[in-house]
């Protein structure tokens, strides 16, 4: 949290001058504060709509979490619904689908950490070794593109290849396989499918941040190593990888901080076609049970627990990033 110093010095000098002459009274302090507010009225007014947004859509909704402790009925609202203590939470522990959703969430996180996380690093290293600027630029503009497509579009693109009447299906049918597997609706492949989609959509975009780190590496290191006879692979291992290590650690730590959040829109779109057992994660549990199913209390309880654990994880991840000598988010 790098707050600049000059703010301190200016407030100090503003306050000190009158302090020498008189003992400040409460009224005078308020008057001075009022004058400062007036002096800065324009930027303060600029800040107001943004602050109001954060208040209304981040801080006020925190209060809505009381639903987690209620037998919430929409027509009563949370002012008149009955408080039932921790019943919603204890009920969850007997709900098999809740445990299934938790396990699914963790499995997907692990799959993506192992399979998706290294992908942009590898691609960035390979692309960085491309010596033609023209080719590199063309490749970059192609691989960034999927990041800007909505999840609905991505799922449709996959459906048209792997789905029931997709290219693969038609091809297999024409080549003697009368009952090909539908990779889009087979519960066994669902988590793999999600991971492949994430890799397809975001690997290219993910390379940008590594390029930034690669450019910052001191070229003279490479020159020195080349003069000493280090091969290309050795230079990559001893210079390039250590050079991007800080950003790798930072991204890893941040990803661990969001362990409980896995592609919400992506899964909401596709969960119905494989069923809750294979596809439900914590976020979609909240949506399908709470807003669709009307079990507001238990769903809100899941949301609150997830939010709480997520908060702890982010704080821990941020702390870990600092401990490892990286910047962290705050």
């Amino acid at each position, binding site marked *: 949290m790098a707050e600049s110093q000059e703010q301190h010095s200016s407030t100090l000098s503003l306050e000190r001058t009158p302090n020498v002459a008189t003992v400040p009274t409460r009224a005078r302090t308020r008057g001075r504060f009022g004058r400062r507010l007036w002096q800065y009225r324009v930027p303060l007014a600029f800040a107001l709509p943004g602050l109001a947004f954060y208040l209304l859509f981040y801080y006020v909704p925190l209060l809505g979490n009381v639903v987690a402790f209620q037998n919430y009925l929409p027509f009563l609202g949370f002012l008149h619904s009955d408080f039932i203590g921790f019943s919603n939470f204890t009920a969850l522990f007997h709900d098999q689908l809740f445990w299934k959703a938790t396990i699914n969430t963790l499995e997907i996180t692990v799959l993506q950490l192992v399979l998706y996380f290294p992908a942009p690093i590898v691609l960035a290293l390979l692309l960085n070794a491309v010596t033609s600027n023209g080719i590199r630029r063309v490749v970059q503009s192609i691989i960034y593109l999927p990041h800007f497509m*909505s999840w609905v579009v991505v799922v449709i693109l996959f459906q048209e290849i792997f789905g029931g009447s997709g290219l693969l299906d038609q091809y297999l049918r024409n080549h003697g396989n009368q009952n090909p597997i539908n990779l889009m609706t087979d519960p066994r492949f669902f988590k793999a499918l999600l991971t492949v989609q994430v890799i397809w959509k975001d690997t290219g975009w993910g390379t940008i941040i590594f390029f930034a780190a690669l450019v910052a590496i001191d070229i003279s290191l490479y020159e020195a190593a080349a003069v000493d006879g280090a091969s290309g692979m050795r230079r990559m291992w001893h210079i390039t990888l250590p050079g991007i290590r800080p950003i790798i650690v930072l991204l890893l730590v941040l990803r661990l901080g969001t362990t409980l959040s896995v592609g919400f829109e992506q899964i909401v779109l596709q969960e119905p076609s494989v069923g809750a057992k294979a596809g439900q994660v914590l976020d979609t549990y909240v949506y399908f049970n709470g807003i669709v199913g009307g079990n507001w209390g238990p769903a*809100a309880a899941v949301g609150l627990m997830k939010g709480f654990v997520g908060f702890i994880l982010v704080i821990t991840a941020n702390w870990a990033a600092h401990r490892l000598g990286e910047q962290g988010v705050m």
Partner: protein
Amino acid sequence: MSRVSTAQPLWAREHNRSFRIIKSLVITVATLLILLPFLNVVEISFLSTKELAEYTGSLHLIPHHLTLAAYRSIFHGGIVIRAMIVSIGVTLVGTALSLLVSIGLAYALSVSGLPGRKSMLMFVLLTFLFAPGIIPLYLTVNATGMLDTYLSLIIPTLLSTFNVVVLRNFFLNLPKELLESARMDGAGYGATLRTIILPLSKPIIAVIGLFYAVSYWDAFFNALLYINDTSKWPIQLVLNSYILQGQSLPNAIAQSAQSVNVTAPTEAIQMAVLVVSMVPIIIVYPFLQKYFVKGVLTGAIKG
């Protein structure tokens, strides 16, 4: 990232041959894997019933002739056009509002000596640590009376903290002397922002604007959650119900297709809708692409 010199220095040349082959192979395959799904749907959208059967049956890539029938049936009116207009409207108004409010907040948080600046910054940054849960957020939007209005597609996602922080960092890094001389010439805060800061910040504002625009255009869940009235659906919801769920569109495509007397296969019409939904992004993409790296870098360096 562009390198300045095009000549190959010694240290960059010496990758061995197997590495070079693997590198070219991986990059070529990756690029093709990204392009092919797009080409596939674009091609299907132009096919007639007969050609479609041939295409999917044999995977031959070049069709004999293309037809615009599918596009004609979409543009004859109906829910797709309506949804496109809704999406364009929400994206334009939303992006403008988001930029306005983000710039205002980011600028205020960069003004030195602003009373309460530190607490305000904290108030904003804390939102990195928690997300409002789905249910509390839904209840809040419900309480504000925005359900089933276009406002619900804009206001609840008005700001992205990441974007605000990136903008603020950019403003903080502008040369102080410029701002001070403007102040000494008697320019107020509003005038300084308008005449000095904004002109210098065009690239970053372009990037942030793009990020906001894309997130409005792509937003699906907001609309699913807050909009019940199908006539207010944005294009992403239409894509979902018409293509993914395979529902027929209420009094839209089927009718208009009959009235113009075209016989495009359903799949071609579906893919035409998909292609139309991607067009705005494809149009904006090249213009703003050159600013991507700069914008992401600014965010990465001082996140």
